[in-house]
């Protein structure tokens, strides 16, 4: 029985991903050793850096994974994140919001965008790809609207930088809390530094993972993704689930924006511009297929870890950013090819068994 379990694990997608991660770590360790004359990749410090950059794409991936399992997708999550980040900066800078009020309002607006996406997809039967892409354009436009300083002559601001002197209605400094969220590190200066925002991400991944694999709701999500007609016949309301998941994706996008602003203490109109497909890619790398109905949270997390470790590895060998872009594409293709090979092996084995 135990051995059976082990065999099952070695044939799983997770196993492939972990092997890939291991290969990656070995390659970069050796490479950076040769290039720098010493190990500069496999250190606790760079591990902390890898983990530290995971928060924003991590939250984007959480929302995207759920939607994709249910057979939908949301390309506007990154724009919603940029909007919520800009909203927090603008509301603190121009209207003296408290930190909690700014974050809360930003997330509520994000949820409203999610509802708009869901309405377009469910009520007007738009293809999710095109509906969310259109919404993303609309949201970027609204982002420039809220970035404008109401008192200034030339109101366009592409970035709003928060300074520590800004006081809210109650005379507190909202940037204190924001920089805690974005920058605080437990065990500062010790061997293992743990950024506060990573704890939140890990809590999020665990929570979402449990919801997906252990609750009734999670099962419904798989069911809707696998076969929406069958789901309706057994009494699941696909529309309701779709609404919940679109709102969920928008809110996790909004949370990514919160982290962007609290890490940089800036609202930027170009924030998360390159992240339109980040969440989707991480989820796919983790084995969540496009048609819906399969995959899990753990795989998506490891998939994300692979791409982030790769970026850090390229940094540790002083590669140019163009090379990083180019080879991250190669990495993705490689991951897909390994998956293809392992699937074929599984099928071949199953056929032999018959």
């Amino acid at each position, binding site marked *: 029985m135990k051995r059976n379990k082990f065999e099952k694990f070695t044939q799983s997608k997770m196993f492939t991903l972990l092997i890939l991660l291991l290969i990656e770590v070995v390659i970069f360790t050796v490479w950076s050793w040769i290039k720098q004359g010493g190990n500069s990749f496999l250190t606790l410090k760079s591990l902390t850096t890898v983990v530290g950059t995971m928060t924003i794409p991590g939250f984007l991936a959480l929302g995207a994974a759920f939607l994709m399992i249910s057979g939908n997708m949301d390309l506007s999550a990154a724009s919603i994140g940029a909007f919520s980040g800009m909203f927090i900066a603008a509301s603190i800078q121009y209207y003296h919001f408290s930190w909690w009020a700014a974050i809360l309002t930003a997330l509520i607006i994000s949820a409203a965008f999610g509802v708009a996406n869901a309405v*377009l997809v469910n009520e*007007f*039967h*738009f*293809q999710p*790809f*095109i*509906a969310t*892409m*259109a*919404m*993303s*354009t*609309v*949201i*970027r*436009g*609204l*982002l*420039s*609207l809220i970035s*404008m300083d109401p008192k200034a002559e*030339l*109101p*366009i601001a592409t970035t709003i930088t928060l300074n520590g002197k800004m006081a809210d209605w109650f005379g507190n400094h909202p940037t204190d809390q924001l920089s805690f969220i974005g920058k605080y590190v437990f065990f500062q200066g010790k061997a293992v530094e743990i950024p506060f925002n990573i704890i939140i991400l890990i809590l999020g991944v665990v929570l979402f993972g449990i919801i997906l694999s252990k609750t009734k709701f999670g099962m419904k999500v798989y069911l809707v993704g696998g076969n929406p007609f069958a789901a309706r016949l057994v009494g699941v309301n696909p529309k309701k689930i779709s609404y919940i998941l679109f709102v969920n994706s928008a809110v996790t996008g909004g949370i990514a924006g919160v982290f962007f602003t609290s890490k940089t203490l800036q609202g930027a109109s170009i924030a998360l511009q390159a992240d339109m*497909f980040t969440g*989707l*890619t991480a989820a*796919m790398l983790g084995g969540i*297929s*496009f048609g819906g109905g399969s995959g899990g949270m753990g795989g998506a997390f490891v998939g994300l870890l692979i791409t982030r470790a790769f970026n850090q590895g390229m940094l540790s060998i002083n590669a*140019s950013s*163009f*090379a*990083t*872009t*180019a*080879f*991250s*594409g*190669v990495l*993705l*293709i490689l991951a*897909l*090819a390994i998956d*293809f090979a392992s699937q074929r092996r599984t099928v071949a084995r199953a056929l032999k068994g018959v």
Partner: protein
Amino acid sequence: MSFVKKNFKTLCLIVLFVIVFAVAALVSVKGGKSTFLSGPAIRSLLFQMSAGGVMMVGMACLLMSGSIDLSTDAQALLGIVMFAYLVQAKNAAGGPLLPWGVAFLICCVLMVCMALLHSFLCNKLNFMPFIATIATSSVYSGIATWWSNAGTVAINRASFVNIGKLSVLKIGTQPYLPVLFIISVAVIAIYALMLVYTPFGRNIYLVGGNRRAARLAGLNAEKISTILFVNNSLLALIGGLMWAAQKKMASVQFSTSAPSMSGMTAAILGGVSFMGGGATGMGGAFVGLALLNTFTYSLNYYPIFQGQQWIWLQQTLGGLILVIALILDAVTSQRANRQLLAARKKAIAAGAGSRART
């Protein structure tokens, strides 16, 4: 009547286009003359449409076959960067090394290689086209950015750049119809005819509608998919070169305007379905392209948008017009569905009646 019913959506788009055009012409009147209806303004609008139009054709064909290529912009960028270097290369005597036609052919070989890679990934390894082309897209744009040092490569071969300048037909003293736009329209027309009147064109729809059924009917879906990938890459190169001829350079700026994304949007707006099949051909896609481009371009001519504080509204409206057009589509297709249902109910009732009589 049946013509109107059949093409209801396209007609709606045309009406919308006429409204957008007329409003732009009217609001831009300054001192008794419309600045929007002048030669240079129209010409630069048509210039904008020409590169997007050619790239749209390749994308629309892929979409109809149920596939997609998100790396089109990156491919075109890599193609024009290579073209620029080839054209600018000097021989020992200091003259140009290659005629630009030869440079074009060499670039075509590169495009075909990229397309064959996509075909291999999607058909042999069964990757989803969406994810495979996102992956290759970052490979190509990484290479192109590195190759051009993240900057621009100027092209000053007169015989090539002049094609970008050529225009015919005049409004007042200014010619307004660019030759590039004529080429673009010709390409669209050829593909429209091909889709409707040749067996290959109809096979594309068939593969897109139901790949398995197409295979059972004896079609080689892989072959069709490969041809369409190659076709898309070559058209992407041509679209990219149109852009390069106008701007006299190859630059990473090309992909920031994402012409293939807007081409894809136009095609979908015109009724090409994202999941393959789809009833409308190139005509609807062309109207969608004209509508989208005219709308975003005309916003520059509205006096109230001249102030910098209205940039947000321009961006927002660009997305909103798409949403509005899609809602229109949803409403019309729901109406069509209702009519179909009603007709079927009637037929069933009639059938039941006749059975009762016998």
